[in-house]
């Protein structure tokens, strides 16, 4: 006979049974939940903050858009420097010696210069200065392109927007001022949103390119910050407006706020938080087998409140 372990085994119950109508209980539960749901939905509704587009972004912040487009070309945006699964610009995050993202590799290939700037411009009907600029860009060797990008990057902090055009201070940046100005006009018309989505084909539900481009700029992030949705605001738990959010994500977002996740591990914070949550989830799953953790209920004795009638009658 196995030795009885009160945290693993249950004593044999030799007491009585009483009538208990589980179908009635379930029906009452359903009715209560339906009524509560209807009341809450009627009183509070649900949030529906309007989606933003590259059109709204570029019309609100044309200089920010144009600067982001330049940064997509010089590799300093989040997307252009991301690494796997989008490109090889970095090795991606790691958990100690585990380079999981790198091992899986680039499966959603993206070249931000080509996909966010050149190809959308090439989808436009041919028109004088833009056609000439694109021809010059495509014909130039890589070293020339890099030099143009470096030159426009140097002056990008001084971009202005006037009379519907992006004004780039004078620099040896070749066709890029025309390309960036054209791209901004394309964005402001709404055509860039469409080009980035239907770049996958007529029927697509894949918004990868347009969402990544949006997230590289300041507009989306500013709106999120305003709604307290960013990382340092424990945003993962929050919802827009005053609606309750995802309170169950409290532990997931908690780690981002504390060292070492917020300090020495910050370059790999996402990977480390996932690893931590995986370990904790496995821990929760295996509570029945973990001495100490499975002993707490018996020690804390909250069960005496739950079964107080049983203990009183004994």
């Amino acid at each position, binding site marked *: 006979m196995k030795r009885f372990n009160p945290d693993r085994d249950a004593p044999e119950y030799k007491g009585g049974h009483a009538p208990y109508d589980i179908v009635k209980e379930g029906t009452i539960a359903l009715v209560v939940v339906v009524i509560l749901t209807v009341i809450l939905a009627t009183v*509070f509704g649900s949030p529906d903050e309007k989606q933003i587009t590259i059109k709204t972004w570029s019309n609100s912040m044309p200089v920010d858009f144009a600067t982001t487009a330049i940064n997509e070309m010089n590799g300093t945006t989040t997307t252009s420097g991301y690494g796997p699964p989008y490109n090889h610009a970095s090795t991606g995050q790691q958990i100690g010696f585990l380079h999981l993202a790198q091992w899986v590799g680039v499966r959603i290939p993206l070249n931000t210069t080509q996909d966010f700037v050149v190809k959308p411009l090439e989808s436009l009907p041919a028109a004088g200065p833009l056609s000439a600029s694109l021809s010059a860009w495509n014909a130039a060797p890589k070293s020339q392109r890099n030099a143009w990008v470096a030159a426009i990057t140097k002056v990008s902090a001084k971009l202005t927007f006037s009379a519907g055009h992006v004004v780039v201070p004078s620099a040896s940046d070749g066709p890029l001022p025309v390309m960036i100005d054209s791209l901004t006009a394309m964005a402001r018309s709404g055509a860039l949103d469409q080009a980035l989505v239907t770049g996958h084909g007529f029927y697509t539900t894949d918004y990868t390119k347009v969402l990544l481009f949006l997230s590289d700029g300041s507009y989306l992030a500013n709106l999120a910050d305003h709604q307290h949705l960013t990382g340092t605001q424990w945003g993962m738990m929050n919802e827009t407006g*005053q609606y309750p959010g995802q309170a169950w994500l409290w532990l997931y977002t908690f780690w981002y706020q504390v060292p070492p996740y917020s300090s020495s591990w910050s370059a790999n914070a996402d990977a480390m938080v996932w690893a931590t949550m995986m370990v904790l989830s496995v821990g929760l799953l295996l509570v029945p087998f973990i001495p100490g953790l499975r002993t707490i209920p018996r020690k804390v004795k909250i069960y005496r409140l739950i079964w107080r009638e049983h203990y009183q009658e004994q």
Partner: protein
Amino acid sequence: MRVFLHLAALVPLDHLGHYIHWHWIYLSVANFIVICLMVVTFVAALLLPFPGRRSRKENR
């Protein structure tokens, strides 16, 4: 379905939320209320008497 036009959100929560900011803890009032309600509900469930005591006593 005109009734739904009028019923939609009697108390809409679309205005910017209030937040509790204490050291590095940053919690929306809405989430705080939900968490408090959960704790209160749990404690109430432990403490409130459950109906049917006589029936259970008779069947022990």
